[in-house]
């Protein structure tokens, strides 16, 4: 039932193409600031690379994956041709245009501001306009997802929305709202300065706006992964979803509590009151809930598959799992990385503990483990699972796929564990050069070297991934049949309104944003004398 395969393939190829470039930059960054590289002598090059790497990995790559996957879900789960195909292509081309527009100034060294924008640092205006175009392109997708669901609802009044689509639309709403923070920062604060209309900027307010985006964007990155956990993995390994309602509740919880917690990124900022920091910290603790629910439900679903395959005993069933199935492997790796990453996250979210790792390499280690590890490995799995349906050709070499997943997992552990460790020792993040000859940091040289080696393993795995997909475009043709999602043990015949629609939860999301962000934003905006002169990158 995938009618618009070209559209979906375009999204995936662009996503994985830019991913390949950004991955290479990442490996280079790792290498060049490690003891095995020699000092660049121009730190500006490092920040150029870092800006490109972060912008692509944070904004362009996951957005494209979510969009492509979203279109696939809409067509296959709803069994309905995509409405608004022309708009979908418009969104795609906006992202292409935006990505190019943003990357040209970065390559030229005119926008080495890093993907978090770092005001009062100000780069070339086209960098920001490019990012805005990417976001606008993705908003078209948000609208299309809502419209497609509405069209389907009209044809199926009262019927339960398929879980995959319910989650997909929840993710798109989350993205629509969370992107507003960065959009306000760009449109009201940064772009006027970059365009030369103003020369000062309220950096504190800008950081608060950015924190509005920065946490929930993480859950937007995570959505495709969680959708794959619930709706692809059980089917691929021959099991069933343990509970459809539990799944819906998890996605609903993400919608409600992912937003009002972003100020855990501003714990060290003086312009935010401690009371608000506490509220955000407490709500952050809640966001562990949907993940714990998910881990429980997925483990139960996997156990069902194992028992159906004849697995027995308290833990004996684990052996009965189809370990040679790439989807099983990806899930297991993803869960291990999610577990370690989640444990690290508990440290980041506590006001006091955060102080010891704030702005250290621990942070970069943490989000690479969660995002680059647990999340991206499921992006790979999604691509592998969808590919035959998109190309009409079989992915034959399962062993190569397994090797690729193994390398990503091992590479990520080797990269990120020492990365966390040097962070605890106090090594700052976002530094182009470390003098490992200095006795103060000489003991960290070994850990950083391991990270760099891990980086090259990841690069190798990433190249293999792209080769596998490219070879899949030329493999023998097969009829992959319709694309299906996992069924629940008790496939629901009816679902309560609240679990079948998003309105209530979107409303709560917006209300909590207003309660948790309203006051700090309004006071910062109204307080006089809080702006500082902009610092222009690459200008004289």
């Amino acid at each position, binding site marked *: 039932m995938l009618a618009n395969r070209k559209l979906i393939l375009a999204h995936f190829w662009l996503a994985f193409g830019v991913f390949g470039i950004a991955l290479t930059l990442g490996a280079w960054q790792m290498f060049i600031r490690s003891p095995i590289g020699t*000092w660049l*002598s*121009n*730190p*500006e090059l490092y920040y150029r690379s870092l800006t490109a790497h972060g912008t692509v990995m944070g904004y362009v790559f996951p957005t494209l994956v979510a969009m492509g996957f979203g279109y696939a879900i809409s067509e296959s789960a709803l069994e309905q041709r995509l409405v608004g195909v022309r708009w979908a292509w418009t969104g795609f081309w906006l992202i292409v245009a935006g990505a190019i527009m943003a990357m040209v100034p970065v390559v030229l060294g005119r926008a080495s501001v890093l993907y978090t924008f770092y005001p009062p640092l100000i780069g070339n205006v086209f960098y920001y306009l490019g990012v805005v175009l990417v976001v606008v392109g993705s908003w078209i997708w948000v609208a299309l997802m809502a419209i497609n669901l509405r069209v389907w609802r009209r044809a199926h009044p*009262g019927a339960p929305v398929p879980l995959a689509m319910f989650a997909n639309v929840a993710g798109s709403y989350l993205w629509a709202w969370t992107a507003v923070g960065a959009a306000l920062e760009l449109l009201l604060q940064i772009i006027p300065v970059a365009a030369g209309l103003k*020369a000062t900027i309220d950096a504190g307010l800008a950081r608060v706006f950015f924190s509005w985006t920065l946490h929930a964007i993480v859950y937007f990155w995570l959505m495709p992964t969680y959708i794959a956990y619930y709706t692809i993995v059980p089917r691929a390994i021959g099991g069933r979803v343990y509970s459809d309602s539990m799944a819906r509740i998890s996605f609903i919880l993400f919608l*409600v509590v992912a937003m009002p917690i972003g100020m855990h990124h501003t714990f060290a900022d003086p*312009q*935010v*009151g*401690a*009371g*608000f*920091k*506490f*509220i955000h910290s*407490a*709500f952050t603790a*809640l966001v562990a809930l949907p993940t714990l629910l998910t881990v429980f439900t997925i483990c139960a679903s996997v156990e069902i598959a194992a028992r159906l395959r004849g697995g027995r005993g308290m833990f004996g069933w684990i052996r009965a799992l189809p370990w040679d199935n790439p989807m099983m492997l990806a899930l297991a790796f993803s869960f291990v990385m999610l577990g370690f990453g989640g444990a690290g996250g508990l440290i980041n979210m506590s006001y006091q503990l955060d102080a010891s790792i704030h702005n250290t390499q621990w942070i970069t280690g943490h989000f690479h483990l969660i995002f680059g590890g647990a999340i991206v490995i499921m992006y790979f799995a999604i691509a592998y699972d969808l590919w035959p349906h998109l190309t009409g050709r079989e992915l034959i070499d399962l062993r190569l796929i397994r090797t690729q997943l193994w390398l990503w997992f091992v590479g990520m552990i080797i990269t990120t564990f020492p990365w966390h460790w040097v962070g605890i020792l106090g090594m700052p993040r976002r*530094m182009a*050069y*470390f*003098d490992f000859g*200095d006795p*103060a*940091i000489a003991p960290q040289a070994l850990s950083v070297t391991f990270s760099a080696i891990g980086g090259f393993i990841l690069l190798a795995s990433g190249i293999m991934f792209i080769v596998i997909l490219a070879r899949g475009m030329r493999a023998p043709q097969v009829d992959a049949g319709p694309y299906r999602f996992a069924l629940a043990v008790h496939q629901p015949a009816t679902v*309560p*309104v*609240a*679990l*079948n*629609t998003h*309105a*209530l*939860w979107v*409303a*709560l999301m917006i*209300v*909590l944003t207003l*309660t948790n962000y309203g*006051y*700090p934003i309004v*006071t910062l905006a109204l*307080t006089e004398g809080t702006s500082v002169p902009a610092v222009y990158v690459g200008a*004289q």
Partner: protein
Amino acid sequence: MSARDLFTFRNSHFRIGVGITAAILIVTAITGFIVLPFAQHWVQFANVWDAICSAAGVPQRAANVTAPEQTKRLSEVVLTSHTLSRPSQEAIGRGATLAQRCAICHGPTGISRADSPNLAGQYAAVIYKELHDFRSGARTNAVMSPFAVNLTDQEIADLSNYYAYLPRPAAYHPTPQLPKPSIVIYGAPMRGIAPCGSCHGSLDNKTGSPWLEGQSEAYMKVQLHAFASGERRNDISQQMRNIARAMTPQEIEAAAAYYASQPPDVVKAVD
């Protein structure tokens, strides 16, 4: 199933969803705005409202704190984007006339033979700032200060534009070029020292930082030591004092010798 059936307290999901959310919000708000502020015994609050305002981050001006008395003069230079923009030929000509009295030390073409700084082609903002600082007393020098005290703002701007307009001493190689010492290439990250070039022009130029290539070795050494000892203090926010203090005498030696041996053509131009 319509919004009417959902957004009502008769719907149990609505009741539970809204109820739990509101309860959590209220409990965390009371904890964050009232309980925790009072749990800090070392902070005194006049009343509950005072504690809430403090936790909310209401901007407050402390009433009884006065700024510490400033005993030494600091740099007060203000540079806007218009101060030195697009000098007219006339302004440069006026600067040239004024510059005749500087020639005795800084050389008739802005290239010194007396261990004073070469000014030809120096960034205009640098000359502007130093002359202002000499005039205000933020920087003092027995020879230089008397020249600066009587200059007007206009004269300072003209002089700055004139010297910036002169060609840099291109083929000026006082000594064989030395290799870059590590303090210049790397700085010393663990001591908070950035590579010199990240401000002084070869990698990037930060407004007010001069380029150093081909300057007198003796002069640069004296200045670095003056920054380190705090004898010179007209650098804004102690930018240069912090660095000089963290440098070893050997590094000061090496950096000064290196820069003195370089031709100034590697430095970024300013438009």
